């Protein structure tokens, strides 16, 4: 631990401007929300979205040349953290736009959703910039605690309360596991700072049995936060049980946090022990791809199906990380970002079709969507094709990237497994497309939704298509972030 210097600390604060601004904005919006009535609650939403976008601009504007550690070795800004932060902030802003109408229809348009969302986002940012085990845990807990409360947001819903309790109990267990693993790693390496840990591991601790023991616990926690099999049990229940606006939140930005968690702990901290955690991730990855894709076929609830689909996609993200090469990390980052964009859009479609007293969360609810609104059927088709990994949509490049990464380490069998299960997975995505285009509509209601939401959702889908045709820019960002 370096000696503490006030001047150095204060100069580090400028690097943390986005986090500080978002924290202050969250507090300010919490207080402002107390002063306004329920009929003007959309102001809270508008302010929150504005705060997120300003934070995104601030995060993009922080000037760094190479990784910089600040705030007494707790905080790290590098190209990866900047890129992930901007994506997470913009995605949360989009999530808020999608959520407003849904919450208004259910009478749960409350400021707390947005404030909790802002603080959860702050947790994501802290986690992304973590340079010490303490900061990792701090960010993760801030994120998780907000998510638990958000899942139980619809207080009168028994299902939401049930899934919140499941999420809370399992999540606390995972956090405890993470802390236990961290304490062992601290005991073995003698430091909480990831940089020092990395040096200690490189210096011959890689085969230390205590370190392996600690890594196993970290992997459990990372697997849980990602929702990788066999730590996936919370995902389907939480996705199905919580209000769709919360499912949208839980299913999008926290995946970026989980990716950052894995990168910071495993790569930044324990990169020298890749042989050990790589093996463990192989198991998680293969199981996730298998269970996620196969079980999703049997689902009738679209939120649950997308939950299992998340599990399978996590398997592909882990493929990139376990490769242990910079090509692998880049492809995993690319996969995470694109998955989050597509997931936000597909849950957004459920929110668009839902209306007062109608959730639109069964797969049948999408029957004949083409007859009701060809434009939005097209948008949904784009999302589904992308999730299935068909060219020319973005999901294709993401899958291609991680498969190339595992081929790069000569793990041909992993690549074969990945391709096989993505073929299995294509079935249930294409079933939704088939229902939209070839089945009779069971529901004739007009597609509602505010003009803003329709515009953002369309932009979201077109972005998926555009990035699929020209993925170069995003690939460059990822390559720059993880050289």
């Amino acid at each position, binding site marked *: 631990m370096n000696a503490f210097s*006030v001047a150095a*600390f204060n100069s580090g604060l400028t690097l943390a401007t986005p986090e500080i601004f978002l924290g202050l904005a969250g*507090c300010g919006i*919490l*207080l402002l929300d*107390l002063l306004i009535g329920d009929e003007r609650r959309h102001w809270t939403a508008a302010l929150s979205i504005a705060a997120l976008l300003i934070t995104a601009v601030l995060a993009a504007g922080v000037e760094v040349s190479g990784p910089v550690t600040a705030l007494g070795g707790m905080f790290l800004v590098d190209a990866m953290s900047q890129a992930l932060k901007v994506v997470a902030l913009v995605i949360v802003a989009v999530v808020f736009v999608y959520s407003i109408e849904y919450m208004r229809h259910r009478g749960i348009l409350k400021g707390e959703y947005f404030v909790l969302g802002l603080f959860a986002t702050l947790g994501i940012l802290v986690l992304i910039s973590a340079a010490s085990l303490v900061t990792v845990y701090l960010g993760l807990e801030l994120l998780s605690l907000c998510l638990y409360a958000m899942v139980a947001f619809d207080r009168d819903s028994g299902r939401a309360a049930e899934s919140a309790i499941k999420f809370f109990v399992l999540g606390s267990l995972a956090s405890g596991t993470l802390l236990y693993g961290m304490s062992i790693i601290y005991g073995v390496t003698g430091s909480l700072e990831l940089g020092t840990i990395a040096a200690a591991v490189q210096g011959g601790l890689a*085969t230390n*049995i205590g370190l*392996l*023991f600690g890594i196993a616990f970290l992997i459990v926690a990372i697997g849980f936060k990602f929702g990788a099999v066999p730590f996936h049990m919370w995902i389907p229940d939480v996705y199905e049980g919580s209000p769709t606006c919360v499912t949208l939140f839980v299913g999008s930005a926290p995946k970026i946090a989980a990716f950052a968690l894995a990168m910071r702990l495993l790569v930044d901290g324990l990169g020298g022990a890749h*042989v050990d955690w790589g*093996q463990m991730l192989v198991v998680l990855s293969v199981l996730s791809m298998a269970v996620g894709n196969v079980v999703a076929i049997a689902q009738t609830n679209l939120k649950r199906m997308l939950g299992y689909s998340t599990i399978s996609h996590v398997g592909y993200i882990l493929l990139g990380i376990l490769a242990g090469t910079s090509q692998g990390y880049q492809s995993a980052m690319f996969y995470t970002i694109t998955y989050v964009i597509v997931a936000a859009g597909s849950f957004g479609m459920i929110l668009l079709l839902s209306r007062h007293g109608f959730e639109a969360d069964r797969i049948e609810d999408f029957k004949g969507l083409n007859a009701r609104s060809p434009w939005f059927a097209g948008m949904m088709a784009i999302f589904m094709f992308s999730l299935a990994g068909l060219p020319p949509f973005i999901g294709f490049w993401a899958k291609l990237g991680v498969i190339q990464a595992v081929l790069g380490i000569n793990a041909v069998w992993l690549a074969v497994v990945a391709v096989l299960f993505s073929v299995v997975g294509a079935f249930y995505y294409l079933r939704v497309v088939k229902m939209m285009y070839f089945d009779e509509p069971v529901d004739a209601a007009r597609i509602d939704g505010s003009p803003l939401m329709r515009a953002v959702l369309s932009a979201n889908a077109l972005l998926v298509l555009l990035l699929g045709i020209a993925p170069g820019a995003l690939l460059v960002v990822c390559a720059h972030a993880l050289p």
Partner: protein
Amino acid sequence: MLDQYLPILIFMGLAAVLGLALFTIGWFAGPRRPDAQKLSPYECGFEAFEDARMRFDVRYYLVAIIFVVFDLEIAFFFPWAVSLRETGTFGLLAMLVFALLLVVALVYDYRKGALEWD
């Protein structure tokens, strides 16, 4: 590779054996002379007043949560107060930020009516 995990297995086995052993020794070696008085449930030395599985008013939880926040705050304030001479202006400002966050929480609690008992 896998043989490196052997110590973990031994550790887990040892933990199980030790736990069981202590339990068994206590069971067999300890004196056990139960009588009706010893076995009867009691509450602070008295006969039990009622079933322990009763419902609590949800407001107790609210008070408990607020208590935890402001109790922990004291744990941070004491060391800060005694070391203020060393930490100086920086310490003062840092604690002001911390206190401000708690004030925001308190204002929120107050306006939402969490501090009203009825």
